């Protein structure tokens, strides 16, 4: 019998909507990047509007979702209808709670999603709604950009 991965057990406890068979942990816990950076393919930066973090000078320093739309548009994304897999594009889903952006997930070429969970791990998950809840709120926007070759 396989020994349960304690990281996976922790994620399952934090996100009861995530079915055990529908996700896997893909990294160790790290504070080096956050979900906002990871969704854009960055793994060495904490992208955040608070002073002291990395943030484009031209953007407002607040957490309203509109500001994060501007951030991703600046990174080459455009709004799109949904999270269905489209050949040649990578998509990002934004989560919002109380009007503020709380999480972002990125679609992988195989249609799975990858999420950096706060200061914890990267996970790959089949469904976006597994992360809906009191921490990250609900999914409010999808964006896409041409996938790098």
């Amino acid at each position: 019998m396989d020994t349960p991965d304690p990281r996976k057990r922790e994620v399952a406890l934090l996100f009861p909507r995530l079915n055990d068979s529908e996700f896997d942990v893909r990294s160790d816990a790290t504070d080096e990047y956050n979900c906002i950076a990871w969704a854009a393919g960055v793994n060495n930066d904490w992208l955040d509007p608070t002073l002291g973090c990395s943030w484009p000078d031209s953007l407002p320093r607040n957490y309203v979702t509109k500001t994060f739309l501007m951030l991703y548009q600046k990174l080459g994304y455009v709004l799109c209808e949904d999270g269905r897999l489209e050949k040649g594009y990578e998509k990002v889903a934004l989560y919002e709670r109380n009007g503020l952006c709380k999480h972002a997930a990125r679609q992988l070429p195989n249609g799975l999603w990858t999420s950096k969970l706060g200061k914890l791990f990267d996970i790959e998950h089949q469904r976006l709604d597994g992360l809906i809840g009191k921490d990250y709120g609900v999914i409010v926007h999808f964006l896409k950009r041409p996938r790098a070759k």
Partner: protein
Amino acid sequence: MPKREYIASDLADKMFVSEPESAYIEQPNRRLSRFDDGHLNVQTRDLAVLAMLSLTAISGRDEGESMEEKFIRLADTWEDETKLMSSMNDIVTNQTHLQIVAMGPDVVPLILQRICHHPGWWFEALRFLTGQDPVPENARGKLLEMTAAWLKWGEENGYS
């Protein structure tokens, strides 16, 4: 003077070091800067205000606990409470983080010792507690580079 009063006074001194108290009374909004959506934007001085407010929430639980023991307990709690957060504002306005800041500058060596082994987002607390910011502009957001800048600052300022 009781220890907690001393800490509160020390924080108050830091808060008003660059402006007289009257400036705060006359223009309170100027001191507590906010994001343009109305949510609190933590800047160093705001952290002082919040830390002072957090003093009112500190119970007698630390009786008999050394400063180091208290710091480790609060630091572990803070890291656990904020582990799912990606918003730095949420992370540094967390009540436990504010309690650590409210412990005053004596925790600076404990923070530096902690980040030496376990880098984490202690930089807002360090900025407030020391009044310094040794992180170069191009290192902002980069945890390991920011940690290295603070550890170097610690060595240069007798904290090694």
